[in-house]
Structures are given as structure tokens and as C-alpha cells.
């Protein structure tokens, strides 16, 4: 790949400065965490053309006319991926009209399609992308809805534009454990029963669709939109992301997933470390908040700051979540703390880039700095996981992102409280 690019660059040089170079960006001289087979390159260059990375390495010639981003003394990573967010579906948490994360009133909301609600003009997006978050899963709420099967989540990038939703139906969400029990009628067993019943309906429907349409099939608890939404889950095309924390509930979820051959992902997983071997054997990934170390509920008595490290050592794929949106930007701090509590550094970086990409099935196009990947790239002032480091420049799908947000504008407006300011700001 690199060779091809060199030839391309040589060609460019032959024909002189051309228009094509206008959308060529070269990030030069940084310490590059490729998170791919090339590992970490101590001093290298990333070349972006259009929306793709075309070259990464130590000895890359910078194309003539490329926009140069000087990264000398800086660090370069893929853009960050928040595996569980509410970007675009929750603007101000306590203003209900700005919150579109759940559906109330029915027992099953599997067909709930959050993609239809996402607002790419949310103020949360600039605030977080200027700090390195370039991609996110937008998930239905696991705590506020009325159903055990909550609905479908989407994957977006934070670069704006018409194409910001990259996968409308990226995952199905469910609530098990104490939360699921409360929704299903009391017991956590009832939550599993509700899930099983809906899945069996969907299995039957998938096999006998025509009879269902001609009303020659038994009735289902699941509605037609629910059945349609569950079909790709049963086909293994999307994962079931189950919000579950207690070890025994995680085991129950693994059994259910095995029974229906679902691709299970654990969300929360406070006690996942206790069942790490089972998770590893079943190849179940865990999406977690590494800072959640309090015994905040009776499902989470085993919470520990070492959860991520223990899972990683056991061979479980780990992704970090903000379960937020306003402060998804703190993913780096979460990952840094995971490292401080025993996690391998590169694995912590993977937990906010390529691991979530794998969960949502986009790792072929994003998550590492390799030629051919979408150009989500962040240049950091220093160690990306350090609380005193900042994103100096963010690139999303090749677009250089303006490093301003509503928050930076407010800061600059009130930079001085000089009485000489215009009336209104005195």
C-alpha cells in the first residue's frame, strides 16, 4: 500500500501542484499509535486523501500541496469511539422535550429506531469532537424506557454532514438483571422470559412470514416492527447489547445467547471480572465504565477499578463507554485510570477505538491508523490518556474540524470582565 502511495505521490510531483492536493492532509512528525500491526511509530507521518488514510509510516513523502499539520512532539491516534452515548438524542437531560432516548408504555420496544431522532446539530457534538471523540454508538436508554427489549441503536460520526449516520441499525439493546426485572414484572427471571418469548416469536415469524401475513399463524407478543427488528439479531448480523451487572445475570445472558446463537455484548458488567473465563470462552465483549467502582446497587457489589484490567488479562475484549454524551470527552481519562489500575496501555487505547468498532462491525473501515481506513485522526498535545493533554487537531473522515464549540465561545466572551466591554457583558 505504501508503495502505491509513493508512486501516486511521485505522479503528483510530476504533474506539479494539482487540485487533487487540496484535499490531501499530511500529519507530520508525530508519535503515531497506529493500533494496527505497525504498532507505535515514534516519529512518522499520516497522509490523508479525501476521507481515507492513504499512508502511515516513518519515511513517507509529504505530497506536494498537501495541508500540513505539524505534529512534532505530539501524539497521534485514531479518533475516539464512544461505545455507548446519547449524542443527538439528549440535549439537556432535564428538559424532556430534548430527550428522545426511550419509548414508554409498551412491554416490547424492539422496533424503536433511535436513528430517526438523532440531531447532528446538537451542541454536544462540537464540545466532544474538539476533544477527540469522532464516532459513537447512539443507544436507547437502558434505564428510562418501559421495555426489556429496548430498541435499536445507531452508529454515527461527529463530523457533521448528511452522512453522519453510518449505520442506522447497529445493535439491539436489552435490559436484564435488576433493571430488567423491574420492567418485566418483578423478577429478573421474568426479564429473561420476556426476552425468550420475543425471540421465539421472531424465529417463528422469520420461518413463516407468509403465513403470518395471511393470518394463518399463532399470535405473537411481539409486534410486526419488533419482529422485523429482531430478525437481523437472530441472523447474527447485529449484536445484542445487554445491560447487566451481576455475575449470575451475566451467566444467564450467556446461556440465552448460546441458545439463540446471538452475538452477545455485556453493557455495564460491574461483576464481569468474576466470570471472565466464561466471557472469554463465549467471545462476549464487555462495554464498561472503568471508573464505576462503587457497590452502587446490589447487582454491583463486586465493582472494582480493576475490572477492565482483569477482563483484558483473561482475553475478554473490552470497550469503554461514557453512557453519556455531554462528557464523552472524558473517555481518555477513564482509559488512563484503567491503565493506572493495571490495564495494558495499548489495550486501553483499543478500548476507545478499535474494540468498539469491532463490536459494531465497522473495524474494517475505522479504528486503526492504516492505509485504507477512514481518516478519523487526532493529534494530541501529549499522552492522549493523560488528563493534562488535549486534542490539538481533530480530523473526521478527512475533514479538518474547527476547534471551537459553544463552550470555547463562552470562555472567550468572558475572558476579561473589563468594564470597557460592550454593554450587556459588563
Amino acid at each position, binding site marked *: 500500500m505504501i508503495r502505491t502511495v509513493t508512486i501516486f505521490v511521485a505522479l503528483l510531483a510530476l504533474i506539479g501542484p494539482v487540485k487533487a492536493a487540496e484535499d490531501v492532509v499530511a500529519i507530520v512528525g508525530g508519535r503515531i499509535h497506529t493500533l494496527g500491526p505497525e504498532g507505535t511509530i515514534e516519529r512518522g507521518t499520516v497522509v490523508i486523501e479525501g476521507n481515507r488514510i492513504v499512508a502511515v509510516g516513518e519515511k513517507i513523502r509529504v505530497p506536494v500541496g498537501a495541508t500540513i499539520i505539524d505534529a512534532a512532539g505530539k501524539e497521534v491516534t485514531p479518533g475516539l469511539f464512544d461505545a455507548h452515548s446519547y449524542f443527538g438524542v439528549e*440535549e*439537556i*437531560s*432535564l*428538559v424532556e422535550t430534548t430527550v428522545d432516548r426511550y419509548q414508554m408504555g409498551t412491554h416490547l420496544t424492539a422496533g424503536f429506531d433511535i436513528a430517526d431522532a438523532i440531531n447532528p446539530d446538537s*451542541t*454536544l457534538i462540537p*464540545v466532544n469532537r474538539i476533544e477527540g471523540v469522532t464516532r459513537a454508538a447512539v443507544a436507547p436508554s437502558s434505564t428510562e424506557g418501559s421495555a426489556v427489549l429496548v430498541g435499536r441503536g445507531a452508529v454515527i460520526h461527529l463530523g457533521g454532514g448528511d452522512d453522519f449516520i453510518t449505520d442506522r441499525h447497529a445493535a439491539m439493546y436489552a435490559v436484564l438483571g435488576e433493571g430488567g426485572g423491574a420492567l418485566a414484572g418483578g423478577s429478573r427471571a421474568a426479564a429473561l422470559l420476556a426476552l425468550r418469548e420475543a425471540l421465539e416469536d421472531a424465529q417463528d415469524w422469520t420461518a413463516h412470514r407468509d403465513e403470518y401475513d395471511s393470518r394463518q399463524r399463532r399470535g405473537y407478543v411481539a409486534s410486526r416492527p419488533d419482529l422485523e427488528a429482531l430478525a437481523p439479531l437472530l441472523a447474527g448480523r447485529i449484536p445484542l447489547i445487554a445491560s447487566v451487572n451481576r455475575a449470575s445475570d451475566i451467566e444467564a445472558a450467556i446461556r440465552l445467547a448460546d441458545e439463540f446463537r446471538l452475538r452477545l455484548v455485556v453493557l455495564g458488567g460491574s461483576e464481569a471480572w468474576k466470570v471472565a473465563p466464561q466471557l472469554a470462552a463465549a467471545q462476549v465483549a464487555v462495554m464498561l465504565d472503568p*471508573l*464505576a*467502582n*462503587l*457497590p*452502587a*446497587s*446490589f447487582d*454491583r*457489589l*463486586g*465493582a*472494582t*477499578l*480493576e475490572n477492565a484490567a482483569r477482563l483484558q488479562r483473561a482475553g475478554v475484549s473490552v470497550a469503554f463507554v461514557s453512557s453519556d454524551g*455531554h*462528557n464523552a*470527552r*472524558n473517555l481518555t*481519562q477513564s482509559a*488512563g*485510570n484503567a*491503565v*493506572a*489500575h493495571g490495564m495494558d496501555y495499548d489495550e486501553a487505547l483499543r478500548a476507545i477505538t478499535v474494540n468498539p468498532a469491532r463490536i459494531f462491525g465497522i473495524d474494517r473501515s475505522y479504528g486503526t491508523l492504516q492505509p485504507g481506513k477512514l481518516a478519523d485522526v487526532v493529534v494530541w*498535545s501529549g499522552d492522549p*490518556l*493523560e*488528563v*493534562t*493533554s*488535549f486534542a490539538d487537531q481533530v480530523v473526521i473522515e478527512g475533514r479538518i474540524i474547527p476547534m471551537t464549540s459553544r*463552550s*470555547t465561545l*463562552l*470562555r472567550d466572551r*468572558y*475572558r476579561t*470582565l473589563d468594564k470597557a466591554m460592550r454593554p450587556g457583558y459588563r
Partner: protein
Amino acid sequence: MYTARLSGAFLILLLAACGGEPHDEATQASSYASTYTPAATEAVAIVNATALTGTGERIDAATIVMMDGRINAVGADLAPPRGAIVVDAAGKWVTPGIIDVHSHLGVYPSPSVAAHSDGNEMVDPNTAQVWAEHAVWPQDPGFALALAGGVTTLQVLPGSANLFGGRSVTLKNVSSRTMQGMKFPGAPYGLKMACGENPKRVYGTGKGSAPMTRMGNVAGYRDAWIKAAAYQKKWETFAENGGEEPERDLQLETLAGVLDGEILVHNHCYRADEMAVMLDVAREFGYQVTAFHHAVEAYKIADLLAESGTCAAVWADWWGFKVEAFDAVRENAAMVDAAGACAIVHSDSDTGIQRLNQETAKIMASARRSGWEVTPERAIVWITANAAAALGVGDQTGTLEAGKMADVVIWDGNPFSVYARAEQVYIDGLLTFDRSDPEIAPQSDFMLGLDVEGGSGQ
């Protein structure tokens, strides 16, 4: 409450001859007094440390000597006193114990189930009569986790549903069977007040009663202060002239304590314009707002805060969870500090309290990046000395100065790094947490036998 007890006793002595005997303030103070007494400790000298003293100074190759529960000496290259336990802190950093001015540990403990929910007496907009200390559960597992984050002192407040939420209590982060065994000796009480959305949501929207609006909020404060002033006067008259002893009123007693200057006002207030109004209310009734908490917009009125001597206690980056939290900027605390006002970083969170050093680091770094000069020796003041001052214990703790309580943290690196962890925590000179020796750290009764090997915590 040394000050109150002394002044109460003094009044009794002075006035017993001519006036009435005021209701027994001294009895109240001693009934609810702290029972915490620091353990006897051996002298400890921490040597070769990088010290951030909390006074704005950084001392390299510092020696910190602790003796009889107090800091005995701090300086570069001091020789440790003979017989002292010497702790080599080469490559390590030492700070005063971290102080959180806004916590609900103990009143909203873990697990956070309804049975444990004791932080908001949500039945009336004025519940100045309730005291947080009467609900503090000393077995909250969160205390030990906060200790692992270097927190040695914390103020536990009632919640923010009410205009007047009740009295706060300042605790030392020591393990005890009782709240009294944690209570910071001599610390003044605080009064939790709340501006803005919460009271009007809980009462107006929630219960259809006053306050329905921010207008109603302010009318509610003023009405209460008028009554408190009358109550205060009644007791003063009684003390001077005798006669029939006025009836005690717990609610007004707390408010009168504020007017007497004995109870400090901690006012939850997000918006700049609302803080300015609250300063007016304080002026009308002659009390001081010690600190605005959650002061998301403090940066907009940093000059007013400097003028009134009011602290702004803030988060590093919380925003957007309600309208009044929409205008957050990362640099808030630094902008307040730069304007000459008192900046504090607080948590209001059982997870955030474990990493106040990191929260401060984020503010420091954002500010530096945006053009404000903030050094680590300056930033540490926001979670030590300024916090101590706002709790009225600034003469006791919050800095590494001779004579102060020996509340000291040894960090395994620069505390403003994400990788730094508190290695040892001393409270009144006693080694209370040691990362290399789990036996030393307190463990809540609650966590015993729950099969969480290596769980709950570090």
C-alpha cells in the same frame, strides 16, 4: 463547635446576673459534639518529596515532619528529627489532605437504594431544621474509596430540593462506628441553600405549591430571613432583659445561627445572574455567602465574587444536565482564581470525590492552554486551602504548615497525572491508608463477607 460553645458560655457568665438565661446553647453544642480524638502517633518524617504545600508554594526535596498529630516542620532538606519514622518519598509528591466541600457520602450511601436515601427532606421548601449528621451512615463504602483518593476532610450536605436544605456537617475521613467519631472537632456547621431549578421543580412543578418560580424562590428566602431576624432579636432581648423564655424553634435556630455568623452559608447556585441576586439577599439580611456550589457560571461574575469574598465551588466539566448548567466552560475555576476570587473544586459525587486531583488537573491544563497561567502549586489550593477556609477550618487543615493537623497525602507521582495514585494518607498524623498494606485501609462493615475479593475499590 468551640467558638459557639465558648461564646455561649461567655454569654451565660456575663448575663446571668441581669438578663434571662438563653436556652442552653452550650448543652446543645456538647450534646452533639465530636467524639473524635486523634490516635497517639509516632513522629514521621517524609523526606525527598516534591511538596505542593497548599500555600501556593512548591518545595523540591522537601521534608515534612509530623509529630503528635500535627505538622511540625516543612522545608527543603530538613534533617528528620531523631527517632522519627523516615518515609523516603524520592520521586513522589506530597500534598495536604484533599478536602471536598460538597459530598453526600453517608446520606446518599452505596448501595443507592431507597432505604438509604437520606439526603433530601423533600416535604417543605424550608427544612433548615434538619441536620445531615443525623442521617450519616458511617458504614458507607464510599468513605474508604474517597480516602484512597486522598480525601481527608469532607463536608456532607443535605440535598438541593429545598430553598433551605438543612445543616451540613464536616467530617474527617476516619472510620468510626458513629458519625460523632468522624465529626471534625470544632468545625462550624454549614447551611445548605439552593437556587434555581431544583426547588421550583420539586415544589412548583412537582407539588403545585410555592416556590413555582425563581421569584418565589427569592421570596421564600427573604420571608425566612425576616422570621429568623425576629427570632434572633427575641433571644437577644431575653438575654438582656430576662422575662419569659422564648420557645425554641429548630428551623429558626439554624437560620439565626447564620445571622449570628456561626453557621456558614453553602449555596447551590448555577447561574451568574442568580448568584448576583443571592448576594443582594445576603446584603439585605447581613449575612455572608461563604460559597456558591455548582457555580457553573461563576466565570461570568468572578469580579462580584471577589468583591463579596464568596468562594465558587465548581466541577471541572459537568454540564448540560439541566438548563442552568448549559453554559459550562472548562476554565471556570481558573477564571475565578485569576479574578482574585476564591476557587474550589468539589465533587458532589461518590465517584468524583475519588479523583479531585484529576478534576483539578483538567481545569489547570485547559486554563494553561487557553492562556491563563496556573501552576500545580496554585491549582492544589483549590482542593486544599480554599476548601478548608470555606468550611471554616482553614486554621486547622488544608496546608502543609507547622501547627496544622497532619493531614497529608503521599502520591506515587505528580498528583495532576491520570496515572498518579495516593500511596499513603495520613490523618492527624496517623497512617490511615497505605496502598501496599490493605490491612491499614478501613473496610466498611457492609462489605464484609460479600465475596468481592479485590472488589470494592482499589
